[in-house]
């Protein structure tokens, strides 16, 4: 069984379902990427994994434990970290305070974790007394990822981490995400920049209308002419 196993998820916000039997799995220390056209339910699928969407069918297990009935807060305690797409920092608080708030549920000493985050994102150490709202888009995303890492999650979920940042910053963010994965943390992310994201993905999911259309390794999906033609623009 995979580390994260979300199978046959069906559900939506109102009466109409958005997800129709969507299945996502992530192995330990691997990167899984969800891509697909607009309105395919990519972010919704991730929110369902995190418990922000009521499911009518299907189940979510993390490390063999069924967490389908847990609230997002309880899933954080079970080892999930979530970085929302927007509004993912505390803008009038300093970088360091943002990290401290990320560690709010921890009662032990979290300074080692903070140092690890600073090692991963050296720029944050330089700016640790600056307010997160005053940072550039890419730096703010680093704060957001750093905040989520403070609980020492086993699975980190990122909702379009590179939305609205420049290509150079995007490459840098992807490099950092690979580094995070090397430390043994599983990563599940939704990406608009499908081509670049699939390049670093151990596993890629192409969603269409709330259901899996193609599932394979990132490389295989990139090589698949059908996927290229329909979803990657040739």
């Amino acid at each position, binding site marked *: 069984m995979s580390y994260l196993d979300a199978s046959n998820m069906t559900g939506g916000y109102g009466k109409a379902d958005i997800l129709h039997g969507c299945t996502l799995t992530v192995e330990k220390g691997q990167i899984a990427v969800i891509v697909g056209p607009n309105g395919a339910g990519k972010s919704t699928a991730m929110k369902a994994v995190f418990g922000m969407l009521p499911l009518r069918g299907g189940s979510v297990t993390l490390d063999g434990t069924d967490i389908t009935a847990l609230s*997002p*807060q309880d899933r*954080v305690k079970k080892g999930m970290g979530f970085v*929302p797409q927007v509004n993912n920092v*505390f803008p*009038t608080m300093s970088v360091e*305070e943002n990290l*401290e*708030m990320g560690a*709010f549920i921890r009662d032990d000493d979290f300074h080692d974790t903070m140092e690890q985050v600073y090692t991963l994102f050296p720029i944050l150490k330089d700016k640790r007394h600056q307010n997160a709202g005053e940072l550039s888009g890419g730096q703010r995303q680093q704060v957001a990822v750093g905040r989520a890492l403070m609980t020492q999650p086993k699975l980190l979920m990122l909702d379009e981490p590179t939305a609205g940042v420049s290509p150079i910053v995007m490459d840098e963010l992807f490099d950092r995400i690979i580094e995070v994965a090397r430390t043994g943390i599983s990563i599940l992310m939704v990406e608009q920049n499908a081509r670049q994201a699939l390049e670093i993905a151990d596993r890629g999911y192409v969603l269409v209308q709330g259901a899996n259309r193609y599932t394979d390794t990132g490389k295989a999906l990139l090589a698949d002419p059908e996927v290229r033609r329909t979803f990657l623009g040739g």
Partner: protein
Amino acid sequence: MELINALVALTNYVIIPATAYGAQLALGALGVTLIYSILRFSNFAHGDTMAFGTAVVILITWGLQAMGISFGPLPTALIALPFGIAVTALMMLGTDRVVYRYYRRIRAQPVVLVMVSVGVMFVMNALTRFLIGVDQINFADGERFIISARTWNQMTGMREPLTLRTTQAITVVTAAITVVALFWFLNRTRTGKSMRAFSDNEDLALLSGIDPDRVVKVTWVLTAALATIAGTLYGLDKSFKAFTYFQIVLPIFASAIVGGIGNPVGAIVGGFIISFSEVGLTYAWKKVAGYLVPAWEPDGLVQLLSTDYKFAVSFVILILVLIFRPTGIFRGKVV
């Protein structure tokens, strides 16, 4: 010499009273701003919370006086203050439990919560009058002056009087201590930081495991403390009358909005802007003008506005700020 006389007159009639009044407004505005940024509505009941808190402090003060307890040269009310805060905090927590919690649960719009707070204001106002009556009450005891007109005259030999009342000095000192303590709490403690996080980004705060109920409770307790301190200082400095506290909501809101609502530093700066404008515009400048321009003998009092119109000053400032810079001086947040 004339210049010094003018300065003494200015200090005596404008700077000292406006500083004390500004400190009281700043504490009031801090309470309003705290509720606004964390619970996300304008709390119109704040003035009457101040009245309630002060009424409790006065009742306890009378009790202490009856037992023969005094605070030497300082007003007995300062001993009663912590007890008054405790009672007011319980009152706030009770009000939240009975009234506000329901509207939070149903995720009511901020404007609905404002109307709810108006209702709370009327109930609280009636309760205060029921508790202590509608008359004017002076409850300041202890030493009346730090510098009286006579000691000033003996000290300096100057004809122009200068007085510093004990209550004015106490107001400024207490306000300073309160503000330092509040900022230390918000910026240095885990609970304080979690309150700022909740104010900044509620969803992310919930995601980080911050307990919203606890944040709300601590906010009400802090607000009760700020309101009771502000109300007691105002009552010591001037006098207590339930209805004046109802009126003081206007300058308090003006202070919070001028400074930038939701921003604690803005609330303090706003308090002093409003108090100095109010006192400056309603002061009769004839005496100071007489010292500075001896040749000029003005017909009137050189008073821009009658003191009856002092509330118009905060009202006009409020309107101007809302038209030209709705976010206030320190860019508060507007939900």
